[in-house]
Protein backbone atom coordinates (compact mmCIF):
# COMPACT_ATOMS: atom_id res chain seq x y z
CA UNK A 1 0.00 0.00 0.00
CA UNK A 2 1.99 2.95 -1.24
CA UNK A 3 -0.45 5.81 -0.63
CA UNK A 4 0.05 7.91 2.48
CA UNK A 5 -2.81 8.41 4.87
CA UNK A 6 -4.84 11.21 3.39
CA UNK A 7 -6.30 14.00 5.51
CA UNK A 8 -9.48 13.08 7.34
CA UNK A 9 -11.59 15.44 5.25
CA UNK A 10 -11.69 12.92 2.47
CA UNK A 11 -14.53 11.29 4.37
CA UNK A 12 -16.75 14.38 4.36
CA UNK A 13 -18.81 15.66 1.42
CA UNK A 14 -19.28 19.28 0.26
CA UNK A 15 -21.87 19.82 2.99
CA UNK A 16 -19.48 18.60 5.71
CA UNK A 17 -21.41 15.35 6.17
CA UNK A 18 -20.05 11.81 6.20
CA UNK A 19 -19.42 10.33 2.78
CA UNK A 20 -17.08 7.56 3.87
CA UNK A 21 -16.37 6.30 7.38
CA UNK A 22 -12.62 5.77 7.65
CA UNK A 23 -11.51 7.20 10.97
CA UNK A 24 -12.84 9.32 13.81
CA UNK A 25 -9.92 11.69 13.45
CA UNK A 26 -11.10 15.11 12.33
CA UNK A 27 -14.77 14.45 13.05
CA UNK A 28 -16.82 16.73 15.29
CA UNK A 29 -18.97 15.81 18.27
CA UNK A 30 -22.12 16.36 16.17
CA UNK A 31 -21.03 13.67 13.69
CA UNK A 32 -20.61 11.19 16.54
CA UNK A 33 -23.79 12.17 18.32
CA UNK A 34 -25.76 11.78 15.09
CA UNK A 35 -24.47 8.21 14.80
CA UNK A 36 -25.37 7.40 18.41
CA UNK A 37 -28.84 8.96 18.11
CA UNK A 38 -29.55 7.20 14.83
CA UNK A 39 -28.41 3.87 16.30
CA UNK A 40 -30.89 4.41 19.10
CA UNK A 41 -33.72 4.73 16.60
CA UNK A 42 -33.06 1.16 15.43
CA UNK A 43 -33.27 -0.44 18.88
CA UNK A 44 -36.55 -1.07 20.65
CA UNK A 45 -35.98 0.48 24.08
CA UNK A 46 -38.12 -2.14 25.81
CA UNK A 47 -36.98 -5.38 24.18
CA UNK A 48 -33.52 -4.37 22.82
CA UNK A 49 -34.70 -5.88 19.53
CA UNK A 50 -33.36 -4.51 16.26
CA UNK A 51 -36.01 -4.61 13.58
CA UNK A 52 -35.47 -4.83 9.86
CA UNK A 53 -36.21 -1.59 7.99
CA UNK A 54 -36.47 -1.04 4.24
CA UNK A 55 -34.32 2.08 3.80
CA UNK A 56 -31.41 0.62 1.84
CA UNK A 57 -33.54 -1.56 -0.40
CA UNK A 58 -31.95 -1.78 -3.83
CA UNK A 59 -28.52 -0.74 -2.56
CA UNK A 60 -25.65 -3.13 -2.94
CA UNK A 61 -23.03 -3.48 -0.22
CA UNK A 62 -19.89 -5.57 -0.56
CA UNK A 63 -17.89 -6.73 2.42
CA UNK A 64 -14.25 -7.17 1.57
CA UNK A 65 -12.41 -8.97 4.32
CA UNK A 66 -8.71 -9.23 3.58
CA UNK A 67 -8.13 -10.18 7.20
CA UNK A 68 -10.06 -12.75 9.23
CA UNK A 69 -12.92 -11.57 11.41
CA UNK A 70 -15.99 -13.14 12.90
CA UNK A 71 -17.67 -10.55 15.10
CA UNK A 72 -17.15 -7.49 12.95
CA UNK A 73 -17.94 -9.25 9.70
CA UNK A 74 -21.04 -10.95 11.02
CA UNK A 75 -22.44 -7.84 12.68
CA UNK A 76 -21.79 -5.83 9.50
CA UNK A 77 -23.65 -8.45 7.49
CA UNK A 78 -26.56 -8.50 9.93
CA UNK A 79 -26.65 -4.69 9.95
CA UNK A 80 -26.75 -4.59 6.15
CA UNK A 81 -29.53 -7.17 6.02
CA UNK A 82 -31.56 -5.30 8.65
CA UNK A 83 -31.30 -2.23 6.41
CA UNK A 84 -32.61 -4.41 3.52
CA UNK A 85 -29.51 -3.92 1.37
CA UNK A 86 -28.32 -6.57 -1.06
CA UNK A 87 -25.05 -7.88 0.28
CA UNK A 88 -22.08 -9.83 -0.90
CA UNK A 89 -19.22 -10.92 1.34
CA UNK A 90 -15.91 -11.75 -0.22
CA UNK A 91 -13.17 -13.61 1.51
CA UNK A 92 -10.38 -12.01 -0.47
CA UNK A 93 -7.69 -14.21 1.04
CA UNK A 94 -9.05 -17.06 -1.04
CA UNK A 95 -9.91 -15.19 -4.21
CA UNK A 96 -8.36 -13.40 -7.16
CA UNK A 97 -5.65 -11.49 -5.30
CA UNK A 98 -4.09 -14.88 -4.70
CA UNK A 99 -3.90 -15.23 -8.47
CA UNK A 100 -1.94 -11.99 -8.75
CA UNK A 101 -4.70 -9.47 -9.43
CA UNK A 102 -3.82 -6.07 -7.98
CA UNK A 103 -5.98 -4.59 -5.22
CA UNK A 104 -7.24 -1.81 -7.44
CA UNK A 105 -8.19 -4.19 -10.23
CA UNK A 106 -10.12 -6.23 -7.69
CA UNK A 107 -11.82 -3.07 -6.46
CA UNK A 108 -12.77 -1.81 -9.92
CA UNK A 109 -14.15 -5.19 -10.89
CA UNK A 110 -16.33 -5.26 -7.82
CA UNK A 111 -17.41 -1.70 -8.51
CA UNK A 112 -18.41 -2.79 -12.01
CA UNK A 113 -20.68 -5.32 -10.31
CA UNK A 114 -22.76 -2.31 -9.18
CA UNK A 115 -21.56 -1.89 -5.61
CA UNK A 116 -22.82 1.20 -3.78
CA UNK A 117 -20.70 0.66 -0.68
CA UNK A 118 -17.63 -1.29 0.33
CA UNK A 119 -16.92 -2.44 3.86
CA UNK A 120 -13.23 -3.11 4.09
CA UNK A 121 -11.01 -4.85 6.60
CA UNK A 122 -7.33 -5.04 5.79
CA UNK A 123 -4.10 -5.75 7.66
CA UNK A 124 -2.45 -2.63 6.19
CA UNK A 125 -2.96 0.73 7.88
CA UNK A 126 -4.54 3.15 5.43
CA UNK A 127 -6.21 0.51 3.26
CA UNK A 128 -9.68 2.02 3.56
CA UNK A 129 -8.34 5.50 2.76
CA UNK A 130 -6.60 4.09 -0.27
CA UNK A 131 -9.80 2.51 -1.55
CA UNK A 132 -11.86 5.61 -0.88
CA UNK A 133 -9.56 7.61 -3.13
CA UNK A 134 -10.07 5.24 -6.03
CA UNK A 135 -13.77 4.42 -5.95
CA UNK A 136 -16.32 6.11 -8.22
CA UNK A 137 -17.92 9.26 -6.78
CA UNK A 138 -21.19 7.51 -5.92
CA UNK A 139 -19.47 4.66 -4.05
CA UNK A 140 -18.88 4.78 -0.30
CA UNK A 141 -16.22 3.11 1.83
CA UNK A 142 -16.54 1.93 5.43
CA UNK A 143 -13.46 1.02 7.40
CA UNK A 144 -13.96 -2.24 9.30
CA UNK A 145 -10.41 -2.11 10.68
CA UNK A 146 -7.15 -1.25 8.92
CA UNK A 147 -3.86 -2.49 10.37
CA UNK A 148 -2.96 -0.62 13.53
CA UNK A 149 -4.67 2.54 12.34
CA UNK A 150 -8.39 2.66 13.07
CA UNK A 151 -11.55 0.70 13.77
CA UNK A 152 -14.11 3.48 13.97
CA UNK A 153 -17.34 1.44 14.09
CA UNK A 154 -15.97 -0.53 17.05
CA UNK A 155 -15.19 2.70 18.90
CA UNK A 156 -18.66 4.03 18.12
CA UNK A 157 -20.39 0.92 19.43
CA UNK A 158 -18.29 1.29 22.57
CA UNK A 159 -19.46 4.90 22.92
CA UNK A 160 -23.03 3.72 22.42
CA UNK A 161 -22.64 1.10 25.15
CA UNK A 162 -21.11 3.64 27.53
CA UNK A 163 -23.84 6.21 26.84
CA UNK A 164 -26.53 3.59 27.29
CA UNK A 165 -25.24 2.63 30.75
CA UNK A 166 -23.66 5.82 32.01
CA UNK A 167 -25.34 8.68 30.18
CA UNK A 168 -23.33 11.60 28.87
CA UNK A 169 -19.69 10.78 28.25
CA UNK A 170 -18.23 14.12 29.33
CA UNK A 171 -18.84 13.24 32.96
CA UNK A 172 -16.90 9.98 32.93
CA UNK A 173 -13.46 8.57 33.69
CA UNK A 174 -12.59 5.76 31.32
CA UNK A 175 -9.65 3.38 31.66
CA UNK A 176 -8.36 1.39 28.70
CA UNK A 177 -6.15 -1.54 29.65
CA UNK A 178 -3.77 -3.67 27.66
CA UNK A 179 -2.03 -3.55 24.33
CA UNK A 180 -2.34 0.14 23.46
CA UNK A 181 0.57 0.02 21.03
CA UNK A 182 -0.88 -2.39 18.50
CA UNK A 183 -4.56 -1.75 18.90
CA UNK A 184 -6.49 0.15 16.22
CA UNK A 185 -9.49 -0.19 18.51
CA UNK A 186 -7.75 1.78 21.27
CA UNK A 187 -6.68 4.53 18.86
CA UNK A 188 -10.25 4.97 17.70
CA UNK A 189 -11.62 4.73 21.25
CA UNK A 190 -9.28 7.47 22.45
CA UNK A 191 -10.30 9.68 19.53
CA UNK A 192 -13.99 9.10 20.20
CA UNK A 193 -13.64 9.76 23.92
CA UNK A 194 -11.65 12.94 23.23
CA UNK A 195 -14.19 14.25 20.70
CA UNK A 196 -17.01 13.56 23.15
CA UNK A 197 -14.92 15.23 25.86
CA UNK A 198 -14.70 12.45 28.43
CA UNK A 199 -13.57 13.88 31.77
CA UNK A 200 -10.49 11.67 31.90
CA UNK A 201 -9.05 9.00 29.65
CA UNK A 202 -6.54 6.63 31.23
CA UNK A 203 -4.48 3.96 29.56
CA UNK A 204 -2.96 1.21 31.67
CA UNK A 205 -0.34 -1.25 30.49
CA UNK A 206 3.35 -2.12 30.39
CA UNK A 207 5.75 0.38 28.78
CA UNK A 208 6.51 -2.12 26.04
CA UNK A 209 2.87 -2.02 24.91
CA UNK A 210 2.57 1.78 24.93
CA UNK A 211 3.28 4.05 21.97
CA UNK A 212 6.32 6.33 22.30
CA UNK A 213 4.55 9.32 23.79
CA UNK A 214 1.06 8.27 24.82
CA UNK A 215 0.52 11.60 26.63
CA UNK A 216 0.38 13.25 23.21
CA UNK A 217 -2.94 11.43 22.70
CA UNK A 218 -4.40 13.39 25.60
CA UNK A 219 -4.47 10.46 28.00
CA UNK A 220 -3.09 9.76 31.46
CA UNK A 221 -0.72 6.82 31.49
CA UNK A 222 -0.54 4.26 34.30
CA UNK A 223 1.67 1.22 34.52
CA UNK A 224 -0.02 -0.06 37.61
CA UNK A 225 -3.60 -1.44 37.69
CA UNK A 226 -4.15 -0.59 41.36
CA UNK A 227 -3.55 3.12 40.75
CA UNK A 228 -5.09 3.31 37.31
CA UNK A 229 -8.41 1.66 38.16
CA UNK A 230 -9.17 3.85 41.15
CA UNK A 231 -12.60 5.51 40.81
CA UNK A 232 -13.09 4.83 37.11
CA UNK A 233 -16.61 4.63 35.63
CA UNK A 234 -15.75 2.50 32.63
CA UNK A 235 -13.11 -0.22 32.17
CA UNK A 236 -12.24 -1.22 28.64
CA UNK A 237 -10.02 -4.28 28.32
CA UNK A 238 -8.30 -4.95 25.02
CA UNK A 239 -6.81 -8.12 23.69
CA UNK A 240 -3.10 -8.82 23.46
CA UNK A 241 -2.44 -8.61 19.74
CA UNK A 242 -0.02 -11.51 19.53
CA UNK A 243 -0.31 -11.60 15.76
CA UNK A 244 0.97 -8.03 15.48
CA UNK A 245 3.89 -8.42 17.90
CA UNK A 246 7.17 -8.81 16.11
CA UNK A 247 9.22 -9.32 19.24
CA UNK A 248 8.69 -10.54 22.78
CA UNK A 249 7.06 -7.51 24.39
CA UNK A 250 5.69 -9.34 27.39
CA UNK A 251 7.40 -12.11 29.38
CA UNK A 252 4.44 -14.49 29.11
CA UNK A 253 0.64 -14.44 29.05
CA UNK A 254 0.63 -15.77 32.58
CA UNK A 255 2.88 -12.98 33.73
CA UNK A 256 0.72 -10.42 31.94
CA UNK A 257 -2.40 -11.66 33.72
CA UNK A 258 -0.64 -11.44 37.05
CA UNK A 259 0.13 -7.76 36.56
CA UNK A 260 -2.60 -6.47 34.22
CA UNK A 261 -5.35 -9.08 34.22
CA UNK A 262 -8.77 -7.83 35.34
CA UNK A 263 -9.79 -9.83 38.39
CA UNK A 264 -12.68 -9.32 40.79
CA UNK A 265 -10.29 -7.83 43.37
CA UNK A 266 -9.03 -5.24 40.91
CA UNK A 267 -12.50 -4.49 39.61
CA UNK A 268 -13.44 -3.58 43.18
CA UNK A 269 -11.04 -0.62 42.97
CA UNK A 270 -13.19 1.06 40.33
CA UNK A 271 -16.50 2.75 41.15
CA UNK A 272 -19.02 0.19 42.44
CA UNK A 273 -21.23 0.72 39.38
CA UNK A 274 -18.37 0.65 36.86
CA UNK A 275 -18.99 -1.29 33.67
CA UNK A 276 -16.52 -3.71 32.08
CA UNK A 277 -16.14 -3.74 28.31
CA UNK A 278 -14.08 -5.72 25.83
CA UNK A 279 -14.16 -5.52 22.02
CA UNK A 280 -13.54 -9.27 21.76
CA UNK A 281 -12.32 -11.83 21.14
CA UNK A 282 -11.62 -12.20 24.85
CA UNK A 283 -8.70 -14.23 26.09
CA UNK A 284 -9.93 -15.64 29.39
CA UNK A 285 -7.14 -15.82 31.93
CA UNK A 286 -4.85 -13.57 29.85
CA UNK A 287 -6.35 -10.08 30.11
CA UNK A 288 -9.59 -10.87 31.90
CA UNK A 289 -10.73 -13.36 34.51
CA UNK A 290 -13.76 -15.46 33.58
CA UNK A 291 -15.55 -14.37 36.74
CA UNK A 292 -15.33 -10.75 35.56
CA UNK A 293 -16.08 -11.43 31.90
CA UNK A 294 -19.27 -13.26 32.90
CA UNK A 295 -19.99 -11.09 35.95
CA UNK A 296 -22.78 -8.61 36.60
CA UNK A 297 -20.70 -5.56 35.65
CA UNK A 298 -19.73 -6.98 32.28
CA UNK A 299 -21.51 -5.53 29.23
CA UNK A 300 -19.35 -7.40 26.72
CA UNK A 301 -22.21 -9.19 24.98
CA UNK A 302 -24.36 -6.06 24.86
CA UNK A 303 -21.53 -4.43 22.93
CA UNK A 304 -21.99 -7.05 20.23
CA UNK A 305 -25.73 -6.33 19.91
CA UNK A 306 -25.21 -2.58 19.86
CA UNK A 307 -22.58 -3.12 17.17
CA UNK A 308 -25.39 -4.06 14.79
CA UNK A 309 -27.37 -0.89 15.46
CA UNK A 310 -24.32 1.38 15.31
CA UNK A 311 -23.19 -0.09 11.99
CA UNK A 312 -26.73 0.27 10.65
CA UNK A 313 -26.65 3.90 11.75
CA UNK A 314 -23.38 4.75 10.01
CA UNK A 315 -24.42 3.08 6.76
CA UNK A 316 -27.86 4.70 6.84
CA UNK A 317 -26.35 8.13 7.55
CA UNK A 318 -23.85 7.82 4.70
CA UNK A 319 -26.55 6.84 2.21
CA UNK A 320 -28.86 9.51 3.58
CA UNK A 321 -26.16 12.17 3.20
CA UNK A 322 -25.61 11.07 -0.39
CA UNK A 323 -29.34 11.42 -1.10
CA UNK A 324 -29.48 14.85 0.51
CA UNK A 325 -26.39 16.01 -1.38
CA UNK A 326 -27.76 15.02 -4.78
CA UNK A 327 -31.09 16.68 -3.92
CA UNK A 328 -29.17 19.78 -2.85
CA UNK A 329 -27.24 19.83 -6.14
CA UNK A 330 -30.45 19.35 -8.11
CA UNK A 331 -32.04 22.32 -6.35
CA UNK A 332 -28.94 24.45 -6.95
CA UNK A 333 -29.05 23.56 -10.64
CA UNK A 334 -32.71 24.45 -10.84
CA UNK A 335 -32.03 27.73 -9.08
CA UNK A 336 -29.14 28.46 -11.45
CA UNK A 337 -31.42 27.81 -14.41
CA UNK A 338 -34.06 30.13 -12.97
CA UNK A 339 -31.44 32.80 -12.39
CA UNK A 340 -30.27 32.43 -15.97
CA UNK A 341 -33.81 32.81 -17.31
CA UNK A 342 -34.28 35.84 -15.09
CA UNK A 343 -31.04 37.39 -16.38
CA UNK A 344 -32.04 36.71 -19.98
CA UNK A 345 -35.44 38.28 -19.40
CA UNK A 346 -33.83 41.35 -17.87
CA UNK A 347 -31.31 41.57 -20.71
CA UNK A 348 -34.17 41.41 -23.23
CA UNK A 349 -35.99 44.08 -21.28
CA UNK A 350 -33.09 46.49 -21.52
CA UNK A 351 -32.72 46.03 -25.28
Amino acid at each position, binding site marked *: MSSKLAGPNIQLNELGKLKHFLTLEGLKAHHLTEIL*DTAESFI*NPVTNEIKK*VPILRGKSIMNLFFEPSTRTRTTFEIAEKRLSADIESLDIQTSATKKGESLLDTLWNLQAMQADMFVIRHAESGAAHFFSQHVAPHVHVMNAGDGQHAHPTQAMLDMYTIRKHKGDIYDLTVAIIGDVLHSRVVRSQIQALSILEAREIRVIGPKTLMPESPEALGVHVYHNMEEGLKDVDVIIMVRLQNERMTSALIPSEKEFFKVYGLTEERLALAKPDAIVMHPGPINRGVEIDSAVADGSQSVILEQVTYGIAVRMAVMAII*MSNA*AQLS*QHKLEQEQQANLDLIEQNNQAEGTL
Partner: protein
Amino acid sequence: MTELDIDVPQLITQICEQIKQKPMFAQSPKMIGIRTGGEWIAQKIHQQLELSDELGVIDINFYRDDFSKTGLNPTVKPSHIPWDVDNQHIILVDDVLYTGRTTRAALNEIFDYGRPASVTLVTLVDRKGCRELPFQADIIGESLECSQTIKLTGPEPLKVTILETQEETA
Protein backbone atom coordinates in the same frame (compact mmCIF):
# COMPACT_ATOMS: atom_id res chain seq x y z
CA MET B 1 -55.70 33.55 5.78
CA THR B 2 -58.51 32.46 8.07
CA GLU B 3 -58.04 30.21 11.08
CA LEU B 4 -60.62 27.97 12.67
CA ASP B 5 -60.20 25.75 15.74
CA ILE B 6 -61.71 22.28 15.63
CA ASP B 7 -63.55 20.87 18.64
CA VAL B 8 -61.19 17.93 19.15
CA PRO B 9 -62.88 16.31 22.22
CA GLN B 10 -66.18 16.18 20.36
CA LEU B 11 -64.58 14.56 17.30
CA ILE B 12 -62.79 12.02 19.52
CA THR B 13 -66.10 11.10 21.19
CA GLN B 14 -67.72 10.77 17.78
CA ILE B 15 -64.91 8.50 16.58
CA CYS B 16 -65.17 6.36 19.74
CA GLU B 17 -68.90 5.90 19.18
CA GLN B 18 -68.25 4.68 15.64
CA ILE B 19 -65.56 2.28 16.81
CA LYS B 20 -67.91 0.84 19.45
CA GLN B 21 -70.51 0.14 16.79
CA LYS B 22 -68.20 -2.21 14.89
CA PRO B 23 -68.80 -5.80 16.06
CA MET B 24 -65.21 -6.86 15.39
CA PHE B 25 -64.05 -4.46 18.11
CA ALA B 26 -66.40 -5.89 20.72
CA GLN B 27 -63.51 -7.79 22.28
CA SER B 28 -60.21 -6.14 23.16
CA PRO B 29 -59.35 -4.24 19.99
CA LYS B 30 -55.71 -3.37 19.43
CA MET B 31 -54.75 0.18 18.50
CA ILE B 32 -51.73 1.71 16.76
CA GLY B 33 -51.02 5.42 16.46
CA ILE B 34 -48.75 6.90 13.80
CA ARG B 35 -46.13 9.15 15.36
CA THR B 36 -46.43 12.09 16.10
CA GLY B 37 -49.91 13.48 15.51
CA GLY B 38 -51.62 10.13 15.11
CA GLU B 39 -50.10 8.97 18.39
CA TRP B 40 -51.61 11.93 20.23
CA ILE B 41 -55.07 11.28 18.75
CA ALA B 42 -54.74 7.55 19.42
CA GLN B 43 -53.87 8.21 23.09
CA LYS B 44 -57.15 10.12 23.50
CA ILE B 45 -59.22 7.43 21.81
CA HIS B 46 -57.41 4.68 23.69
CA GLN B 47 -58.13 6.44 26.98
CA GLN B 48 -61.78 7.10 26.23
CA LEU B 49 -62.42 3.51 25.09
CA GLU B 50 -60.51 2.23 28.14
CA LEU B 51 -58.67 -0.35 26.06
CA SER B 52 -56.78 -2.91 28.12
CA ASP B 53 -53.90 -3.56 25.71
CA GLU B 54 -51.11 -1.02 25.54
CA LEU B 55 -51.20 1.42 22.63
CA GLY B 56 -48.79 0.56 19.80
CA VAL B 57 -46.84 3.38 18.17
CA ILE B 58 -45.17 3.30 14.79
CA ASP B 59 -42.74 5.76 13.30
CA ILE B 60 -43.05 5.41 9.54
CA ASN B 61 -39.92 7.38 8.73
CA PHE B 62 -37.91 4.29 7.85
CA TYR B 63 -40.75 3.25 5.54
CA ARG B 64 -41.10 6.48 3.58
CA ASP B 65 -40.87 6.21 -0.20
CA ASP B 66 -38.66 9.27 -0.60
CA PHE B 67 -35.46 8.15 1.21
CA SER B 68 -33.51 8.56 -2.05
CA LYS B 69 -34.51 12.25 -2.05
CA THR B 70 -34.78 13.33 1.54
CA GLY B 71 -32.58 10.84 3.41
CA LEU B 72 -33.09 10.11 7.08
CA ASN B 73 -35.37 12.15 9.27
CA PRO B 74 -33.31 13.09 12.33
CA THR B 75 -36.32 12.82 14.65
CA VAL B 76 -37.05 9.18 13.88
CA LYS B 77 -37.60 6.97 16.93
CA PRO B 78 -38.14 3.23 17.24
CA SER B 79 -41.60 1.83 16.61
CA HIS B 80 -43.13 -0.15 19.42
CA ILE B 81 -45.96 -2.63 19.03
CA PRO B 82 -46.09 -4.44 22.38
CA TRP B 83 -48.33 -7.31 21.30
CA ASP B 84 -48.50 -9.91 18.54
CA VAL B 85 -49.97 -8.45 15.35
CA ASP B 86 -51.00 -11.83 13.92
CA ASN B 87 -54.76 -12.35 13.61
CA GLN B 88 -55.65 -9.13 15.43
CA HIS B 89 -58.28 -6.59 14.44
CA ILE B 90 -56.22 -3.43 14.47
CA ILE B 91 -57.35 0.18 14.62
CA LEU B 92 -54.78 2.36 12.87
CA VAL B 93 -54.99 6.02 13.88
CA ASP B 94 -53.57 9.02 12.05
CA ASP B 95 -54.19 12.74 12.49
CA VAL B 96 -54.61 13.72 8.86
CA LEU B 97 -55.26 11.61 5.76
CA TYR B 98 -53.89 13.50 2.78
CA THR B 99 -51.93 11.83 -0.05
CA GLY B 100 -52.23 8.34 1.43
CA ARG B 101 -48.47 7.82 1.41
CA THR B 102 -48.22 7.72 5.20
CA THR B 103 -50.96 5.08 5.28
CA ARG B 104 -49.05 3.00 2.73
CA ALA B 105 -45.89 3.22 4.82
CA ALA B 106 -47.77 2.38 8.02
CA LEU B 107 -49.42 -0.69 6.48
CA ASN B 108 -46.06 -1.91 5.19
CA GLU B 109 -44.58 -1.56 8.62
CA ILE B 110 -47.48 -3.31 10.35
CA PHE B 111 -47.17 -6.21 7.93
CA ASP B 112 -43.49 -6.53 8.82
CA TYR B 113 -44.70 -7.40 12.33
CA GLY B 114 -47.23 -9.97 11.19
CA ARG B 115 -50.54 -10.61 9.46
CA PRO B 116 -53.41 -8.81 11.14
CA ALA B 117 -56.96 -10.10 10.72
CA SER B 118 -58.00 -6.60 9.66
CA VAL B 119 -56.89 -2.99 9.75
CA THR B 120 -59.41 -0.19 10.24
CA LEU B 121 -58.18 3.26 9.35
CA VAL B 122 -59.23 6.11 11.62
CA THR B 123 -58.34 9.70 10.87
CA LEU B 124 -59.20 12.84 12.77
CA VAL B 125 -59.19 14.89 9.58
CA ASP B 126 -59.62 13.76 5.99
CA ARG B 127 -58.37 16.18 3.35
CA LYS B 128 -60.33 14.97 0.38
CA GLY B 129 -59.40 15.30 -3.23
CA CYS B 130 -55.61 15.10 -3.17
CA ARG B 131 -55.09 11.39 -2.67
CA GLU B 132 -52.13 9.97 -4.59
CA LEU B 133 -52.75 6.37 -3.51
CA PRO B 134 -56.02 4.44 -3.27
CA PHE B 135 -56.69 4.70 0.47
CA GLN B 136 -59.87 5.81 2.23
CA ALA B 137 -60.45 6.04 5.97
CA ASP B 138 -63.14 3.89 7.61
CA ILE B 139 -63.82 6.37 10.38
CA ILE B 140 -63.41 10.10 9.86
CA GLY B 141 -63.62 12.88 12.44
CA GLU B 142 -63.90 15.81 10.07
CA SER B 143 -63.82 16.08 6.28
CA LEU B 144 -62.08 19.03 4.70
CA GLU B 145 -61.17 20.17 1.24
CA CYS B 146 -57.68 19.53 -0.05
CA SER B 147 -56.89 23.25 -0.01
CA GLN B 148 -57.49 23.46 3.74
CA THR B 149 -54.34 22.71 5.70
CA ILE B 150 -54.13 21.72 9.32
CA LYS B 151 -51.99 22.80 12.22
CA LEU B 152 -51.81 20.28 15.04
CA THR B 153 -50.24 21.01 18.42
CA GLY B 154 -50.07 18.67 21.39
CA PRO B 155 -50.06 16.38 23.16
CA GLU B 156 -51.58 18.54 25.94
CA PRO B 157 -53.61 20.52 25.15
CA LEU B 158 -54.35 18.88 21.85
CA LYS B 159 -55.35 21.60 19.42
CA VAL B 160 -56.24 21.44 15.75
CA THR B 161 -56.55 24.57 13.65
CA ILE B 162 -57.76 24.72 10.06
CA LEU B 163 -55.86 27.15 7.88
CA GLU B 164 -57.46 28.32 4.66
CA THR B 165 -54.69 28.50 2.10
CA GLN B 166 -54.02 31.43 -0.17
CA GLU B 167 -55.39 29.57 -3.19
CA GLU B 168 -58.72 29.47 -1.45
CA THR B 169 -58.77 33.10 -0.40
CA ALA B 170 -57.19 34.52 -3.56
